[in-house]
């Protein structure tokens, strides 16, 4: 019996532990993984985030009629793992602490980024985005940079041709 009364005394001394959220703002610690924020000016359309996204919340579609690569991010599928921010080479994605994301409108949950595609100088097919190409070109040395405007298949053909020329085969 004594222990029971002690329990009451203890509980009353601890008081109420209920947080008054949502009537006061929620506190989340640093490093909490909330909504990813996309900076369209930094995105180069390399599709690394789409590759790594487990639930396919980030998907890429190449629209050849408009000449753009479209990144579609759908919040409904996102699991907030933050892998997209990990692998983005230009840090275009940052993980914010927002988690109050409910909406009555499905359009609020979707985000679209369009990046221009570039045509291969040799065969004329779209093969990558302007920005990705520029980023890669910036890291290459002289002599190789000229090959950057040609798509991988044509480059292979070129390489084979030059090998044949070098080897003297007909």
């Amino acid at each position, binding site marked *: 019996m*004594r222990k*029971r009364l*002690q*329990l009451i005394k203890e509980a009353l001394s601890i008081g109420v532990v209920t947080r008054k959220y949502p009537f006061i703002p929620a506190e989340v610690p640093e*490093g909490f993984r909330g909504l990813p924020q996309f900076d369209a000016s930094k995105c180069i359309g390399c599709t690394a985030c789409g590759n790594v996204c487990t639930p396919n919340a980030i998907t890429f579609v190449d629209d050849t009629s408009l000449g753009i690569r479209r990144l579609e991010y759908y919040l409904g599928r996102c*699991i*907030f*793992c933050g892998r997209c921010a990990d692998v983005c080479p230009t840090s275009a994605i940052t993980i914010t602490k927002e988690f109050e994301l409910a909406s009555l409108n499905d359009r609020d949950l979707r985000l679209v980024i369009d990046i221009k595609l570039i045509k291969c100088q040799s065969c004329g097919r779209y093969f990558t985005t302007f920005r990705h190409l520029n980023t890669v070109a910036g890291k290459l040395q002289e002599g190789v940079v000229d090959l950057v405007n040609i798509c991988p298949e044509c480059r292979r053909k070129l390489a084979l041709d030059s090998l044949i020329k070098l080897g003297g085969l007909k």
Partner: protein
Amino acid sequence: MHQLISSFEGLQGKVKGINYLNDGVVLVDTTPNSLFDVVNFITRELKGIFTVIIGVDAREIDGSFHNIYVFSLDELKKYVLVRVMLEGSDPKVPSITPLIKGADWSEREIRDLLGIKFINHPDPRKLIVPESWHDGVFPLRKEVSYKLRAHGPYEPYQPRRSEDVIALPYGPYHPLLHEPEYFELHVKGETVIDIEYRGFHVHRGIEKLGEARLTINQIPFVAERICGICGYVHSVCYCQVIEGAAGIEVPERALYIRSLILEIERIHSHLLWLGVACHVLGFDTGFMHAWRIREPVMHLAELLTGNRKTYGINLVGGVRRDLKEEHIDKVIKVLNEVKEGYTKFINYLTGVREVIKRLEGSGLLPRTEAISYGVVGPVARASALKRDVRVDHPYAAYKDVYFKVPVYNDCDNMARLMVRVEEVFESIDIIKQLLDKLPKGPILAENVEVAEYREGFSAVEAPRGEDVHYVMTGKYSRVYRWKVRAPSYSNIPALKVMLHECPLSDAPLTIASIDPCFSCTDRLIVVDVNTGKRFKVPMRALAKGWRP
């Protein structure tokens, strides 16, 4: 090491090949005809305890189906995997259920999902797939797409009961049920004599998903969502399997961080269970206070990993988030407060006599039955079986810490409660030791490369028991076969024994005491064997002493 291999020499001619998968796992190849001899040898001579049977559709590799029987040798600290290759066109193998009761579910699952026939299996009913599933479609076979749904017309579940009872179908999707599963208690007067269980209504096909469209580094995030309380365990186990199969060396600091988070998960899981057990017993104050004590642990997890439950910090080769210096002090401070509050709470709990009286002496599981069903975790440790994966097959950083494994001989509900209570104290101690010895260095292995068609096997001690994963890697950075066996899978069949001759009002508490991964305020069907009448009863009513 060689000692184990040499002990198999007694089975010359029956064993086709034997080699090491990695340090703690031995793979033995044998034929279906010699299976019984090998299994008997392992269970009797080597004192192995049955764990799970894994079925693999390996027709793309060598034209056969593989059945892998896993046994755990606790004293020798090894796992023995016995592999049998079955012909691809008509796979058949004798069933070992007559020898080992725990094999019942594994064999039925393989029969449902892969179509392998088990000769002499006592139970021909479906386990995983719904009754209305088409008979010839086996979901885990490679030719079946993961998007396929193969339903036929609705067919009711046929429970088995003794002759003097009338059959009435009560589906699992009933407006009164809290969660989709189905329990049937067969009752004589006031004592339960048998139980029928039909589960797997929320089978999500995660193994098939892992094979179909996920890459090796995406699977840890899916694995984390297998369980709603102990998901991190699955993530760690999977990463360990791949790291073992590919020979990746994980940095020490990552191992310590993984162990730390695992122990935090154990603490919050046991506190959750304690609250639920109090609620089932009508002691709501205990429920509220247990969860109040648990809340700082959840905050801690959020601080360290970024989320309260789905931590998402595991990758193959290590972890992706480091432990900061200022966090370490916070961890120790919070744990000290939790320990203080928790000690006081346990003190009060022992003063609530009616709760203690109901726990003692109910839901008995004798040691021999426990071995036969292969129970794991606190259920095993409360039945005088000293089984703990952290000690028997050490992984992560557990080799470097000292802790006690609580074992009780009472085999009742009270023992299971005491095991969990003590484990929380031990976990707090382990975390402090880990933080003390935390090494510096990288947290993720560089240049991870996983070769094709390598097998891996690993186990982790979840709060509910031993969690086991098996992976065969495949091409293009995917897995060929991923098998998960959660601890409750081994514990639920043992309910048949625990509820035998058990008074009816103790049944909900017994079911809650194995800590299954579903809510324990479920509806049960009580069948009075004498009159044949069936009653739908909420667990709460049973706990209050309902009688038919």
